[in-house]
């Protein structure tokens, strides 16, 4: 059975106050260098809502602009103003911080997220008016509590403060007094992930035209862990998200693999559908507070705005063949194995050419590659370079070594076979998957044929292995109706007759 991609959802939440209070670059700095010049200057570099709306990479992420249009815009992109500044796009939306805080409270099932009364009153109408927020979610919003009580919780009960424009408007309480895995810090991080995942999942279902009750399985592939002190990564974000989204017929599970998580999850999900286990599977992931302002020191030093101020989320809906939607080719699957090693050449071979070779294909048989789609506005000033571009150069260098392109073609390879990076540096969020929405559209329009999604993950950061990781797969046009599977009754009869004749012949031969 074939698996098709019915649709995808992409969302961003603008969370400037969380950059200051929850990004690990800032929380670390506050511990080791509380009076630093960086912490003093950082607030002046935060972007306002209108600026993030008119930011080119954000408009590409939610689908109002295409990667091709972005490629024509001179970098750095923070110096350009996009001519579209809508908050809703073809794939999803950008959500302002105040609505996102209400969403965090709405997805909380353990009475941990507290918001101040007047803050709720001021923003509830806007939250309810959000295109993706239905009445069941609005009904989950509580009236809120007094500001003094929030201050007390933060000061006396270790609650994680929630700020809006530098004003304390709420908090996330710890879920246990002793258990560090249920601390307010962890609960805050997980609640942000869950809220952004819910929004992405709802957007994806709408775009796919799939009813909530038709989803049978959800796979979450973020990089957080939920559990308690007896089972730190017990899970399960997928089911928790499905519950809030109203997917009554779904269960699910979490797949992890650092930034390679989404590629693994999509291969798993596509295989579940292809095997006939489930007819409709959604892969979803929310974003990550820890990475907000991750490279902020370099951005501030270079006098630029903080581009790492958006929480990201994405979801992809996979179903059994509908005869129209682009399909996942489960034959062309690349994987970095234990034996692959860490040499960049070996890594890219394992993810790109090994899978192509098995299928008799060349690098140039793929129309577009989507490796790690990090926005270069975030990475270049931090000395990490243009990550997608570096990946294209690696694939091009490999193509030269294989004699598939000339050395002179390396320079133009990225333009021809690649896309610019537009995703926020939210770990798993940029990892190939931001291109799926665009690929699905372009394949349906007949402008692209084979597109490869490549996820790479830094497993070594978990200190359990020094290994790297990665996985890849190909999306291609729907190949039309499949030949009926299995063998007809007539054929079975013929096969039995043939076997009987052969058996009889062998008996006769034995007698002779």
């Amino acid at each position, binding site marked *: 059975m074939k698996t098709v991609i019915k649709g995808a959802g992409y969302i961003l939440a603008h969370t400037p106050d969380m950059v200051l209070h929850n990004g690990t670059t800032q929380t670390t700095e506050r511990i080791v260098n509380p009076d630093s010049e960086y912490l003093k200057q950082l607030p002046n570099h935060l972007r306002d809502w209108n600026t993030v709306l008119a930011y080119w990479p954000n408009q590409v992420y939610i689908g109002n602009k295409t990667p091709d249009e972005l490629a024509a815009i001179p970098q750095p992109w923070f110096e350009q103003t996009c001519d579209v500044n809508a908050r809703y796009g073809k794939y999803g939306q950008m959500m302002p911080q105040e609505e996102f805080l209400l969403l965090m409270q709405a997805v909380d099932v353990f009475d941990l997220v507290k918001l101040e009364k007047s803050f709720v009153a001021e923003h509830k109408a806007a939250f309810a008016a959000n295109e993706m927020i239905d009445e069941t979610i609005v009904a989950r919003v509580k009236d809120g509590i007094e500001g003094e009580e929030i201050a007390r919780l933060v000061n006396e009960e270790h609650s994680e403060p929630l700020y809006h424009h530098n004003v304390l408007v709420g908090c996330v309480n710890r879920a246990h007094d002793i258990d560090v895995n249920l601390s307010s810090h962890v609960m805050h991080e997980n609640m942000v992930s869950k809220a952004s995942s819910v929004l992405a999942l709802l957007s994806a279902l709408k775009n796919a035209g799939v009813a909530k009750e038709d989803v049978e399985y959800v796979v979450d592939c973020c990089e957080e862990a939920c559990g308690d002190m007896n089972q730190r990564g017990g899970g399960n974000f997928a089911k928790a998200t499905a519950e809030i989204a109203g997917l009554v017929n779904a269960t699910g599970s979490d797949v992890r693999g650092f930034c390679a998580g989404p590629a693994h999850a999509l291969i798993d999900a596509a295989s579940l559908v292809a095997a006939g286990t489930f007819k409709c599977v959604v892969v979803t992931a929310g974003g990550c507070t820890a990475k907000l302002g991750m490279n902020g020191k370099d951005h501030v030093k270079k006098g630029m705005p903080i581009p790492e101020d958006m929480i990201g989320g994405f979801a992809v809906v996979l179903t059994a063949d509908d005869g129209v939607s682009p399909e996942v080719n489960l034959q062309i699957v690349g994987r970095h194995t234990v034996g692959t090693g860490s*040499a960049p050449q070996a890594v890219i071979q394992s993810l790109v050419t090994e899978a192509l070779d098995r299928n008799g294909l060349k690098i140039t048989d793929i129309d577009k590659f989507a490796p790690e789609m*990090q926005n270069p506005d975030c990475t270049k000033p931090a000395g990490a370079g243009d990550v997608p571009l570096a990946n294209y150069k690696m694939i091009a260098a490999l193509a030269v070594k294989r004699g598939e392109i000339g050395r002179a073609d390396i320079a133009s390879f990225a333009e021809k076979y690649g896309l610019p990076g537009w995703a926020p540096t939210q770990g798993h969020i*940029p990892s190939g998957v931001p291109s799926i929405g665009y690929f699905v559209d372009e394949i349906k329009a007949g402008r692209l044929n084979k597109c490869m999604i490549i996820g790479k993950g830094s497993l*070594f950061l978990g200190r359990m292995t020094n290994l790297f990781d990665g996985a890849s797969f190909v999306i291609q046009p729907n190949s039309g109706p499949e030949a009926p599977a299995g063998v007809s009754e007539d054929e079975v009869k013929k096969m039995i007759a043939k076997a009987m004749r052969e058996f009889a012949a062998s008996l006769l031969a034995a007698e002779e």
Partner: protein
Amino acid sequence: MAILAGKKVIIIGDRDGIPGPAIEECAKSAGAEVVFSSTECFV
């Protein structure tokens, strides 16, 4: 005089450049002893 032969080598690799284990192979082939190897990640 050789830079690496007989020395204790500390490796700070980069996920988007040359990762630690790849540098390890190079250092060992030059006769160095690797005492620490790590890989950094900016994304």
